[in-house]
């Protein structure tokens, strides 16, 4: 089983979510994070002093999938739908997980997803 984590621009979330559902990935967990990278933060002004807000709001999507095939699908879909072509579009990270359990039923592994 694989875990896919994607850091994307917040306003792209809806497109990505809709596209994931379309390819049959019907579970995901998201969180609001802040990113630091090549994308420049913006300048704010307060009482005559300017300063840069360096961390940029991003959304992290976590998806657990049972098969490599689903993983591949998810990656494709995210790449396509989170893309604006401008710096800061974000990244996708893939890693392995060893077990999944659905609390409600106690089902494990593939069945839990």
């Amino acid at each position, binding site marked *: 089983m694989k875990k896919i984590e994607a850091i994307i621009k917040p306003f792209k979330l809806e497109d990505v979510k809709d596209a994931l559902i379309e390819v049959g990935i019907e579970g995901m967990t998201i969180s*609001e994070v802040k990113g630091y990278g090549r994308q420049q933060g913006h*300048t*704010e002004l307060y009482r005559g002093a*300017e300063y840069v807000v360096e961390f940029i709001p991003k959304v992290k999507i976590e998806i657990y999938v049972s098969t490599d095939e689903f993983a591949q699908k998810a990656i494709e879909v995210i790449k396509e739908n989170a893309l604006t072509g401008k710096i800061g579009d974000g990244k996708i990270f893939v890693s392995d997980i060893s077990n999944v359990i659905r609390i409600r039923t106690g089902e494990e592994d593939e069945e839990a997803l």
Partner: protein
Amino acid sequence: MLDNPSYIIDTFFTIFAMVLIIFMVPGFAMLEAGLVRTKNVTSVLTVNVMIYAVASMSFMLIGYEYAFGSWDHQESISKYAFFLFQMAFVGKIINIMSGGVSERSRIIPLALFTIAVGAFIYPTIVNITWGANFLDGTFLDISAMSDLAGSTVIHSTGGWALLAAIFIMGARKGKYAKNGAIKVIPASNIPLVTLGAFLLWIGWFGFNGGSVGAISSKENADAVALTIMNTNTGGLSGAIVAWALTYFRYKKFDITMILNGALGGLVAVTAGPDQFSMYVPILVGGMGGALVVLFVPLFDKLKLDDPVGALSVHLVNGIWGTLAVAIFVDSVSYWNQLKGILVVGAIVFPLSFVVIYVINKIFQLTADDEEQLVGIDEVECGMEAYPEFKRSI
């Protein structure tokens, strides 16, 4: 014994009324700051401060004399108090307009329109209704319209300006999906909306009560008290009707609609509160609330995107309220009311349209899509309204 007791008391009363109206400045500011998204709150507040400052100053320097002919046109109260009371009205027009196009307008061009309204457009309307009346004797003379505190003069005027602005500026980015579906953009801070609405409500007591013009006779004291009572009743009834209608229709209570209903009732009752008998405002204000519940989703469907419901509250009810005086007060003629509504609309709408159109062309009033996406706060103010509250997506 006092010399000039009525001068003294009416000056005091006018100052009292004016102070109540000034509570509408934070009132509008809080209402609008609560209704827009977090990313536009600072700019909406900045616009509200700008409007009070720029509109009042424009009116003081230019508009007031144009509207009333001179600083010495009356002697029954202190001329400064008279000015203050009139000045307290001006910003409202632009508040109505700016609220309705918030989340997509830039500040400098809005300031230019504010000057136009404060120095010229609004004074024109005051001139032909409550003021010097340069149309006196012409076919267009509408000074016979019965409009105590401005259902037409204030509220419709603001509403027409807003309608023109919406036609020119279009909807907020993201308000309508590609397939035309309406996307809901919820208010970000309901306590502020509620606070703002109540400050407006209280301001209305000064607005309408003060418009009676004097309290220093038994008749006037009664007229003022009746006016304030009727004003309040209009608001109560508007709230109750909006409450009942949203509940029957959706089985939920929508407080933004209820408060808009109350404001709609207040606008509706503003033209004739001194003339209505005590129970009439239940009907007038109640209808005001109903019109809001009807028109807010309607304008939404017509893609007239108005985040604060100003068209329904001020334009629709400004018209309704002005007509209502003819319906419920025998001595008031339908024709005079209708003529007033039409002449004001025929002046304000095209005038505002041209002015806003030109401002938008030259100074780009409408924020572009990218700017709307990041929010006007970042673009125009460089300052978040709540930087330490984590934003939920």
